[in-house]
């Protein structure tokens, strides 16, 4: 019983030879990547390399069409699942540009979302009181005023508040795999530190994994990756340890990606 269970658990995400296009334009061209439980991977790369596309493809955004290849998440065919099913299976995408939703409060949205996930997994929905407690605790942990959770989703939030709010969502939802798309962009140094600490507290666990999509080294000072990959021209052109991020910062992408 234990050992087959362990094997599926340890292999969190396996992407093989993914090709994907948007509006008929090929963006990902044979990308392969493997994440095991307990690992943090960083994907770096120049603008237009396909970093955000990778996140969207994995989360199932309509219009991002996979033409070849496979992605297996926690033993299941990810590409067969609808976006909400991927979420319920434990995948979380942190958006580079979190979407504003007027008229829908954070609390209402997150409670419905969490309970939809719980129902999909055959768990009891969380009561109103328990949910509020959880939401407040996560907001406090990320340094976001819990009162802001009563406001419409991301409406009137500053860039930093939106990213903190994404991490509060992640804390409430408690996913297995977090794909964080430029979560560090637009953050001042305090917010960066808070967000970094949040990622570690929520996701640095033996049964979870993180894929950090980022432009810069600076987030990686707070969330130390086990592996760093360089994405260029729609595929991984180089992989290495944390030192690769420093090398990229020093030498630039052109040198490394060449």
């Amino acid at each position, binding site marked *: 019983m234990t050992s087959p269970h362990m094997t599926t658990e340890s292999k969190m995400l396996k992407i093989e030879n993914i090709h994907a296009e948007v509006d008929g334009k090929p963006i990902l061209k044979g990308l392969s990547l493997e994440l095991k439980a307990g690992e943090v991977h960083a994907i770096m790369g120049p603008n237009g390399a396909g970093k955000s596309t990778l996140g969207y493809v994995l*989360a*199932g*955004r*309509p219009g991002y069409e996979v033409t070849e290849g496979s992605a297996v998440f926690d033993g299941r065919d990810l590409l067969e699942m*609808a*976006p*909400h099913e*991927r*979420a*319920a299976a434990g995948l*979380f*995408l942190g*958006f580079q540009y*979190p*979407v504003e*939703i*007027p*008229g*829908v409060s954070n609390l*209402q*949205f*997150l409670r*419905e*979302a*969490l309970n*939809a*996930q719980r129902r*999909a997994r055959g768990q009891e929905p969380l009561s109103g009181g328990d949910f509020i407690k959880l939401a407040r605790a996560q907001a406090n942990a990320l340094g976001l005023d819990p009162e802001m959770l009563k406001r419409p989703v991301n409406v009137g939030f500053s860039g930093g508040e939106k990213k903190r709010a994404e991490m509060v*969502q992640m804390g409430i*939802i408690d996913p297995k795999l977090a794909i964080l798309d430029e979560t560090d962009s637009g953050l001042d140094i305090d917010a960066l530190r808070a967000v970094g600490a949040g990622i570690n507290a929520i996701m640095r666990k033996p049964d979870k994994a993180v894929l950090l999509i980022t432009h810069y080294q600076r987030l990686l000072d707070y969330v130390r990756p086990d592996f760093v990959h360089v994405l260029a021209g729609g595929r991984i052109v180089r992989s290495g340890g944390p030192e690769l991020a420093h090398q990229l910062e020093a030498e630039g992408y052109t040198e490394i990606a060449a």
Partner: protein
Amino acid sequence: MSTLPTKRDEAWRYSDLKALERIWPVPVPDKVIVPAGKAERLSLVQDAPTGQVVVRDFTIEVGVGASFAMQLVNAGGQFGRIALDVTLYEGASFELDAAMIAGGEQTIELVTIVRHFEANATSRQTVRSIAGGKGTVSYVGKVAVSRDAQKTDASQSVKAMLLDRGATANAKPELEIFADDVKCAHGATVGELDAQALFYLASRGLPQAQAKALLLRAFVSGLFDGSPDEERFTAAIDAALETLL
């Protein structure tokens, strides 16, 4: 009116006249008279079962310095029509919040005439409509300002959301102004659900129908915030959305 209207009649141009035949002649209008200086309100939920034909006419007179607030959900039946003929006297005020939802092959409509008969009256109409399937939602609203009705302040805000290719939304605000010192604002938009917002909600675990319902409730929600009948309205809207999605 004893003969059936035709599409040439402005107030019936978007109606389901075939369905109308089944109940013609329509009942006489309900009369509402708000005496001078009084404030009254009326809530109306039209949630007739599938297949029924409902035509509700109201003639409303709002006396000097009086106010009338009407809130309604129009969502039931094969053909559901609500028509208001409102006359405003000196300094009177009329407020209308209306939500309309049509799915399947429903025709849901709101037809209003607001007559600013004397000076200094205000009217505000806020209409939010949702059409899915092959449903049709229509708003035909006329604001008529008499020659003596100076300082009239009238507004019509009409927004419609289309969910499916076969759905139709009509919005026809119309002004007929004979005074020269008036403020008459009107705006009408027809849109669809924001694909980015839908994906964002889905990525957090909401199934499509639930995500759509959340956005659509938000679209109409502002209308009934704080209303004494908020719960009744919300329940009617939720029920209509559930059939629609």
